[in-house]
């Protein structure tokens, strides 16, 4: 029985914004479930195959914002074949037919077609925001429909998508009446852009706060755009190359100086190091700096820039910054919370950053809570020091580039190093391992990583015990992805109920066999167990003892998906 009117409860629920809290609220009683579902506006679906669009629409008629994720994470690294799935089309079609007033759609790792974009653009009068991350399957024609038809569009944010670029007309499709843009990001487009249309669009968008250009936009145009939009908060440069002694460059310097609101800076796919000084005036305000595509920028030009960025909270850079450069970061950026160091030279033996750089950062930046670090050598001692200096890690991803490489000083596995991390960082939610590792590290993870939600394992472990330590110990585990590790059926089948508490499990090049997967599928009808095998043998080889190349399983409320391609076998 409710002691409050429904309207009162609804008002209270308005203050509950986190999806998890909302989910909890809906479990209290039938009445709360009902009130919650009618008032819910934002829904997040981490695996598009776990539920159907129809059930979504039925339960949340007031839906305004939908986030969907498709392919498994390892698809980012080419481990999932094209055409595996993750199509957004059925979702958009179902929503279009319904009375849902969709305003925002955020997709990650999904296949999006121009037709779907066209349908989307025409079906929802109040559509405001489209965010596509690591998606594919569409062309600039699809973008043209969005531009042309979404009259109140506020946000078009394209991050690292594979887009077929059919000439640059899509920008011209924004009508003159469109003045509502707040965020425009087309940095991932590879083709030419109608520069005149871009200038006019920016000129008539007084609310524009975020603008990220692609390399087809030259520096002189950037200068003009900044003159028109000094209110920008978030800027991604296009081609940042020019003669520093030119008039254009001088104009750029003044334009940048007027942009006192810029807090976030990225782009620099093409960069001239001598032009970086134009940015110094705004460095002091920056909280996020992404130089991870700036191949030409290193040495003094790079460190001088960073020294100006005293308020930096997030930094993404290339490893050519070197340990010394990281030392500069450590002494200049005391507010740093997130650091990502990407490899710049994939094929060389360029020992650009080592364990020393990481230790310096940990010593100088006590607020550090998120790390992605690619390096070619590491030591346990360094990791233990890092664990001591930075107990606040939420995300810790270390990639020692050579698989199974041991501690470069002691030649030992990294069990103790990672063990120290999980023991010290009690709030750790995401962990990626690398280097030489035995079952011992998994014992530590199972024992200490109580908040761990996502774990990535590659070329690690000795036996099934390793995987079992994790499955038994990490109560909050949601996503587990494993490749090239010696875990087999015994580990897979020990506690099949565990997988219902998780979003998904990926195992590739491990020791699980077809028979093991079949057993699991039989025991757990609420799971979808997919075998992904592109060799043509799959149909003919029904030998249960055969090892499975790639297995992906996930919990689902709607049974096996109907759109799986021939190389995916759902048991």
């Amino acid at each position: 029985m409710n002691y409050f009117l429904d309207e009162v409860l609804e008002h209270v629920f308005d203050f509950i914004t986190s999806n998890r809290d909302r989910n909890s609220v809906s479990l209290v009683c039938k009445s709360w479930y009902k009130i919650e579902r009618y008032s819910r506006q934002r829904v997040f679906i981490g695996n598009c195959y776990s539920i159907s669009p129809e059930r979504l629409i039925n339960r949340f008629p007031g839906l305004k914002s939908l986030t969907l994720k498709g392919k498994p994470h390892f698809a980012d690294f080419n481990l999932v074949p094209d055409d595996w799935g993750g199509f957004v089309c059925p979702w958009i079609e179902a929503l279009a037919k319904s009375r849902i007033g969709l305003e925002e759609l955020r997709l990650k790792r999904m296949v999006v077609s121009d037709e779907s974009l066209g349908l989307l653009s025409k079906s929802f009068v109040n559509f405001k925001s489209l965010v596509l991350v690591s998606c594919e399957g569409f062309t600039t024609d699809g973008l043209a429909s969005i531009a042309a038809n979404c009259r109140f569009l506020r946000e078009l944010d394209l991050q690292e998508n594979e887009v077929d670029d059919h000439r640059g007309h899509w920008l011209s499709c924004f009508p003159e009446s469109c003045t509502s843009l707040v965020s425009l990001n087309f940095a991932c487009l590879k083709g030419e852009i109608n520069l005149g249309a871009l200038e006019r669009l920016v000129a008539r968008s007084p609310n524009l706060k975020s603008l990220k250009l692609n390399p087809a936009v030259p520096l002189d145009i950037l200068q003009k755009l900044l003159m028109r939009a000094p209110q920008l908060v978030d800027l991604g440069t296009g081609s940042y190359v020019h003669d520093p002694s030119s008039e254009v460059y001088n104009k750029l310097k003044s334009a940048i100086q007027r942009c006192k609101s810029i807090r976030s800076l990225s782009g620099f796919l093409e960069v001239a190091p001598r032009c970086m000084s134009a940015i110094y005036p705004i460095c002091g305000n920056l909280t996020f700096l992404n130089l991870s595509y700036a191949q030409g920028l290193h040495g003094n030009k790079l460190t001088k820039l960073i020294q100006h960025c005293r308020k930096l909270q997030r930094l993404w850079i290339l490893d050519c910054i070197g340990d010394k450069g990281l030392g500069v970061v450590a002494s200049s950026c005391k507010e740093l919370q997130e650091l990502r160091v990407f490899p710049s030279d994939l094929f060389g033996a360029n020992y650009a950053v080592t364990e020393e750089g990481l230790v310096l950062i940990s010593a100088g930046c006590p607020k550090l809570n998120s790390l992605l670090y690619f390096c070619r050598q590491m030591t346990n001692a360094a990791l233990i020091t890092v664990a001591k200096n930075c107990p606040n890690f939420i995300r810790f991803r270390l990639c020692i580039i050579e698989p199974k490489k041991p501690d470069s000083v002691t030649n030992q596995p990294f069990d103790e190093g990672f063990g120290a991390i999980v023991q010290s960082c009690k709030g750790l939610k995401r962990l990626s391992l690398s280097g030489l590792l035995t079952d011992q590290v998994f014992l530590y993870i199972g024992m200490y990583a109580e908040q761990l939600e996502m774990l990535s394992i590659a070329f690690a472990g000795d036996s099934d015990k390793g995987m079992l330590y994790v499955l038994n110990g990490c109560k909050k585990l949601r996503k587990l992805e494993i490749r090239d590790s010696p875990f087999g059926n015994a580990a897979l089948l020990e506690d099949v109920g565990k997988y219902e508490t998780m979003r998904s499990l990926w195992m590739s090049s491990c020791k699980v066999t077809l028979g093991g997967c079949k057993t699991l599928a039989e025991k757990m009808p609420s799971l979808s167990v997919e075998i992904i095998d592109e060799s043509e043998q799959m149909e003919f080889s029904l030998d249960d003892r055969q090892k499975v190349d790639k297995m992906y399983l996930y919990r689902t409320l709607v049974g096996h998906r109907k759109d799986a391609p021939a190389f995916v076998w759902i048991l």
Partner: protein
Amino acid sequence: MELQLDLALSTPNMIKGFDLNNLGFDQQKEMGGLEDWNHAGGCFGDKDCLKNKRGFEQAFGNFTEECKAIPLLLWSGHPNEEEDHKDQKKRTSSTIDDMNDAEEDQVVGWPPIKSWRKKTIHQHQVGRIENNRTVEKDNGRSIYVKVKMEGVPIARKIDIRLFHSYQALTNSLISMFAKHQKCNEDDYTRYTLTYQDKEGDWLIAGDIPWQTFIRSVQRLEIVRNSG
């Protein structure tokens, strides 16, 4: 699973690189200037843009101020009657040509870098690379195309999917072939990038949109224009 370390051979003659990111060009004494690397510009869809073939310097817009004489390629000109143009060999990703560099055999999906990022980095590493092939099995995405340069005995193979414009492709080809050339000629000659399409016809590269081009290109050849 063993990791086979790639053997990246660095040729002693390798030029420092036609590095668009670094405007301090190394003026190589051995190199002269190659004017008029003919190819069409890459700004399709822009009405103001000429679709005519432009000279090399025009095509590189902003860079002309900085690099008056872009150190390009000088050919010693070894007339070499290697393969016939009429060779109808289809492109396959398993065909191996004569290559200077060693075969690379890397672990698929490792290191764990987003393929989008890998492609972008690769694309912008003009002149730095020892070879222009993607080494990863791209699950059918890669399109390997044989590239021959007139006068150069050794053909190369590139993954055309790594490039997204004629400009990027040309940059890469310049640095790729520059390594193999002795540079002791003084006269400047013109070169044109041509390609063989699905029907077997040889056409000049640059007239059709890039996306259409990569779907139809079978092989590439850089030919000399005399006169």
